[in-house]
């Protein structure tokens, strides 16, 4: 049996631009909805028989159905002929941005919806910008509700140009722009007969053209130590390899201590391994003069990790209580947890208008983005997000709560 490809994508866009309806349509037209679920949907669709409320497929909370909004992110599954997909639904309201980020941070591609009738909204810009910050590089723009503009090619061309302008500032590896109407199923799974002027892919065809994530084996080893277990009287450092490869007999440098050690063995419950790759959860025994503990990182000696006391990151804020200059806050990066002080907040930006509010700010409010400089006495091991993503992304914590996220440029 050959292994089927799989890909996770998130559906984003402004309130009422049709995200939940599009997902419901997807599942319905690909025959992915169990019969009993369809029956329940008919029951809760307030008696309208021929028009099942597709939005209810994922909007499962009573409050969501009653108010016709998506509150929280959800995940569901469907398959095309080509591969298996996980769809991550994300809420469109500004106050649920942290839920959108939770969903989008797990995706390797995104569908960005725009209601062609209503046009570009703050939330459209905000979501597009957040996707770029989170490192989602494959994007399909769905210009939805074409039925409301009589399937007009002129309107499509106009809105497509606006989207291209917005996305011009964003780094993307793949971009498609598709005219569609999710409610009637036009150009979602089935090609629409109402837009003969469009000969590009349907949404499902465009999805099948995206590339699944691949493990880049050429990256240097990064193994953040998650914990240390004593097994048969010996210390075993466990963790999931964030990047690269480790082999028995390899010399590794332990950051930030800078001490060298030799990998004596790689252990799993099923038996020892000769080598292990990024993504694998393993245990390693290291010979040498070093005591391993959580937060240390085993690295390739040819490309050890830098340790900095001063770290600048593009930070997005996710709490109603603003981040303040001078505040003490905890930073988590891979398995490190380091107390920091906020030294400065530069280029504070409104993520809805994408305009700079303040070049040198005292604080950063909910949904805003800025370049934040953090200072720690102990130092943080990090590197550029574009080099090794796992070592270039962090969260900020107040007490036990995650209140911000950030990318090391």
């Amino acid at each position, binding site marked *: 049996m050959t292994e089927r490809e799989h890909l996770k994508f998130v559906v984003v866009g402004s309130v009422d631009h049709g995200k939940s309806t599009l997902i419901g349509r997807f599942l319905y037209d690909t025959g992915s909805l169990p019969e009993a679920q369809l029956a329940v949907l008919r029951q809760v669709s307030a008696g309208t028989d021929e028009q099942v409320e597709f939005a209810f497929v994922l909007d499962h909370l009573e409050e969501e159905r009653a108010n016709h909004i998506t509150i929280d992110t959800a995940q569901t599954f469907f398959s095309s002929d080509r591969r298996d997909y*996980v769809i991550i639904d994300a809420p469109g309201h500004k106050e649920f941005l942290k839920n959108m980020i939770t969903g989008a941070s797990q995706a390797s591609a995104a569908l960005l919806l725009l209601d062609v009738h209503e046009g570009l909204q703050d939330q459209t810009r905000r979501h597009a910008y957040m996707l770029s910050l989170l490192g989602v590089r494959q994007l399909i723009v769905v210009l939805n509700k074409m039925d409301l503009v009589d399937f007009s090619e002129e309107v499509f061309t106009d809105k497509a140009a606006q989207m291209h302008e917005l996305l011009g500032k964003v780094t993307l590896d793949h971009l498609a722009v598709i005219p569609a109407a999710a409610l009637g199923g036009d150009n979602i799974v089935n090609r629409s007969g109402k837009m003969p002027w469009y000969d590009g892919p349907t949404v499902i065809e465009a999805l099948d053209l995206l590339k699944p994530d691949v493990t880049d084996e050429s990256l240097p080893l990064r193994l953040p130590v998650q914990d240390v277990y004593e097994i048969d009287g010996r210390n075993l450092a466990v963790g999931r390899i964030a990047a690269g490869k480790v082999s028995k007999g390899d010399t590794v440098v332990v950051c930030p201590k800078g001490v060298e050690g030799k990998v004596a063995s790689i252990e799993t419950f099923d038996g020892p391994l000769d080598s292990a790759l990024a*993504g694998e959860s393993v245990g390693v025994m290291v010979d040498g003069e070093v005591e391993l503990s959580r937060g240390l990182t085993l690295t390739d000696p040819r490309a050890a990790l830098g340790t900095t006391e001063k770290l600048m990151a593009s930070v997005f804020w996710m709490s109603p209580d603003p981040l303040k200059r001078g505040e003490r806050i905890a930073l988590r990066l891979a398995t490190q947890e380091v107390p920091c002080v906020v030294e400065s907040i530069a280029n504070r930006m409104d993520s809805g208008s994408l305009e700079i509010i303040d070049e040198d700010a005292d604080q950063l409010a909910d949904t805003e983005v800025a370049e934040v400089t953090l200072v720690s006495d102990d130092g943080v091991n990090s590197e550029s997000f574009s080099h090794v993503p796992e070592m270039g992304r962090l969260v900020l914590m107040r007490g036990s709560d995650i209140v911000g996220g950030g990318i090391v440029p």
Partner: protein
Amino acid sequence: MDKISELENQSIYLIREANYHFRNLAMLWSIGKDSTTLLWLCRKAFFGKIPFPVLHIDTSYKFKEIYAFRDEYAAKWGLELLVARNEEALRAGMSHESKLECCNALKTNALKQAIAKYGFDGLLLGIRRDEHGVRAKERYFSPRDEQFKWNYEDQPPELWDQYKSRADEDTHIRIHPLLHWTEKDIWQYVKRENMPFVDLYRAQDGKRYRSIGCECCCAPIDSTAWTVDEIIEELEMTSAGEREGRAQDKEDANTMQKLRALGYM
């Protein structure tokens, strides 16, 4: 890496995170296929010796096969098994005439009593997103207050393997290491690992259980599947939902949400 290995590695990472962050952790084992998979993964994460107790919420209405399987593998795998029953409700004659009331008393309240008794601050559970629309909204690390309430309107953000991994006072955190698995993934993993499971999942006399719990509230499906391969093949053909035989899911469209808001698993 193939998909099943990816799921396994992610789950082991989550289990180890839970063990690192919580002082008083336990795993809920219903003896069904999902929590048995979780137990299997915990054994792998800790090289065969699970460093926390395994808790069975016993309604007393479970299938006899479930009790037999529990006792056999608790001994074989050296588990620290705890069994929690709401004795008071059972003495008062609680039974399944009202699903909501019965599940709430014998499962949710039995769990509340166990948490009060042992002081757990973290609980590992084998729920999956594809089981039910409401579970699709869950987080890997999901806080509950002292009333067990799930505040689904204001869940903590979760990104890049960073979680709300510390409980505030008077709360506990539920950790869901199998959240990203599907029913088919579970069976493919059972096959790959040659993992034991309760025979109720195999067809006898043309019927098998697809989801198991209390004997009174589970209905079998028509099936001839005996081997794991046959079960997987059957899943690929069916358009019926996994929990269609589970009474508590369908009293009305929002029963599951109501149960979960009260602290149901």
